């Protein structure tokens, strides 16, 4: 116990003396939480629209003004021919083209139907997809309005109609920040946990102090605990800092209990620290450790459900995410923060995380050797 106390004392001294670690711990969460949620927004705004109006009628003008008034589209150009408009797309000035054929109004009035043409620039697939979806919705609405103008709608509509009204549970305003902030917090915690631990131990290897430690009667578990505990505490500190920022800047406070989050975070950190430890046993230099953890982080983030939904991944990718601790924590964070889930609701994730912690740490302890 006494040995462990002095090891911890030494670790904390070193951590607090290293200005780069302090900067990392304070600045990284602040920067990431202040900037990323604003930028990482799925909602498409400012879609640049090109319009070719062959009709120049009352209705076509009305349609165009409805579209631009929606706030999602910016009218980029108003061309005479499709080719002119298409060259705008080629120059990447436009994202979507709406072509209104001649006699649009005439057809609409006479035959009660008219066709429109939408062309999207699919280089940015999300933008084209969502853009044309928005456009279609707006046109639909427009359609309804036009009908209302013409026909006296009877009390009960003669034709059967399905009308869909949706309400967004747990995030009524579909605020993406509510969705992103907890996820980014998880990534932060993962970085602090795995990177800092790995770098710290590899640094001892690099400067040769580990040799000096290895010839002492110090026990293996003392050394490893001495490394894990400081970063465990640091990780929980970063989490707290993150929640303070989330509250102050975005007004997000978890619906569920903090206790639930901290219990899960505690177990999660154990797993992530184990990963860091494991990296450090295989890497000989800080550069190697950095590259390995960069590679792993990349997979963790992209297959973690932060930016892309796991449910829409192919089956094999879903299997990979099951081995990704980040995906569990992001899920849990969103459950607790947005839905107010309790410890009982996240028991499955907690159990899986416990298994992660045991396996990763066990593997690291077995492969860490005091002699070669």
């Amino acid at each position, binding site marked *: 116990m006494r040995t462990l106390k002095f090891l911890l004392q030494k670790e904390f001294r070193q951590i607090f003396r290293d200005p780069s670690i302090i900067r990392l711990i304070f600045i990284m969460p602040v920067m990431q939480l202040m900037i990323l949620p604003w930028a990482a927004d799925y909602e498409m705004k400012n879609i640049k629209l090109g319009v070719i109006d062959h009709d120049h009628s009352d209705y076509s003008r009305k349609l165009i003004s409805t579209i631009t008034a929606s706030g999602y589209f910016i009218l980029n150009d108003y061309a005479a021919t499709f080719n002119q408009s298409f060259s705008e797309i080629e120059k990447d000035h436009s994202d979507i083209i709406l072509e209104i054929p001649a006699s649009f109004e005439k057809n609409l009035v006479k035959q009660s139907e008219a066709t429109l043409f939408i062309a999207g620039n699919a280089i940015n697939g999300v933008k084209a997809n969502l853009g044309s979806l928005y456009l279609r919705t707006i046109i639909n609405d427009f359609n309804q309005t036009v009908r209302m103008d013409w026909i006296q709608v009877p009390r009960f509509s003669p034709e059967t109609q399905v009308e869909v009204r949706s309400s967004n549970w747990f995030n009524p305003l579909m605020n993406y920040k509510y969705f992103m902030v907890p996820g980014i917090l998880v990534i932060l915690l993962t970085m602090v946990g795995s990177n800092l631990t790995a770098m710290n131990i590899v640094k001892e290897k690099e*400067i040769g102090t580990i040799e000096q430690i290895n010839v002492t*009667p110090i026990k293996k578990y003392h050394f490893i605990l001495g490394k894990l505990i400081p970063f465990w505490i640091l990780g929980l500190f970063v989490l707290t800092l993150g929640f303070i920022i989330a509250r102050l800047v975005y007004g997000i406070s978890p619906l569920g209990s903090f206790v639930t989050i901290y219990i899960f975070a505690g177990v999660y950190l154990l797993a992530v620290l184990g990963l860091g430890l494991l990296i450090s046993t295989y890497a000989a230099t800080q550069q190697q450790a950095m590259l390995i953890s960069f590679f792993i982080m990349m997979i963790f983030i992209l297959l973690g459900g932060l930016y892309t939904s796991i449910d829409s991944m192919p089956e094999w990718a879903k299997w990979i995410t099951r081995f990704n601790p980040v995906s569990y924590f992001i899920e849990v964070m969103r459950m607790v923060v947005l839905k107010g889930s309790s410890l009982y609701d996240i028991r499955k994730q907690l159990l899986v995380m416990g298994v992660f912690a045991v396996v990763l740490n066990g593997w690291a302890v077995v492969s860490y050797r005091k002699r070669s």
Partner: protein
Amino acid sequence: MSIAVTVKNILKTYGKKKELVTALQDINFDVKTGELFGIIGPDGAGKTSLFRILTTLLLADSGTATVDGFDVVTDYKQIRKRVGYMPGKFSLYPDLTVQENLAFFATIFNTSIDENYDLIKDIYIQIEPFKDRKAGKLSGGMKQKLALSCALIHRPSVLFLDEPTTGVDAVSRKEFWEMLKRLKEQGITILVSTAYMDEASLCDRVALMQDGNIMSIDTPAQIVANFGRTLWAVRSGNMLHLLDELNTMKEVENAYPSGTFHHVILKKGYTDAFLQQALSETNNNLEIKAIRPNIEDCFMQLMRR
């Protein structure tokens, strides 16, 4: 006298089949308790590998070794409690102060600075004025004193010093050897490796190492006495030319530059009279004298075998 360190048939190789490097080939020696034992050899002789095996950091391929009566493989835990190891590279925490480093190493050996202060006092007192300075900011000589203090803080019975004087100025080197002598008086067995031949004469016994082999183990005086040949020091106005000339003469067994002279060993039956005669024509200011060989000469001679 009891034996502090025994090494029997130690073999160590690195690398795979094709690029197999033999670091230690069948090494055997004993070190007596309280001895100052030097392992002298050029870079790559296998000194560090040997030290790492004895300090339980490295496993030998075959052979056995004991330190203080404990086997390096089975009783490594006991050995780690009672040896001090100072690696060739400075390996203390550069971001901790002098005092903190020392206190840290004292505590992980379950002791305190006060308990063994008498042992390190002579050394530590020299760096005490800088005890609040970070270890990374110390000068080379001071770093070394700190490393030695840290290696001694738990009062080890055997001390391993791997090239402690490499890259240290002449005055600090001298000081360092003085410190070792005082430690020896405290009854600590000291194994020290060095690439500097002149330090050999400061040891009780030395092992001359080359390419993973021990060529000779003896007291420095005995090694010199075993030289068995007459060594001539030759000097002239054109030293470069003189060396070329010496090396082409079939009567010369070995010739190499050493300081301001060339050292020459002649084949049996030839004396300085022959050298005088052979060289006087082509060299001005020729000077030939017989000298006592030093350890370096012995090393050069042993290497030729």
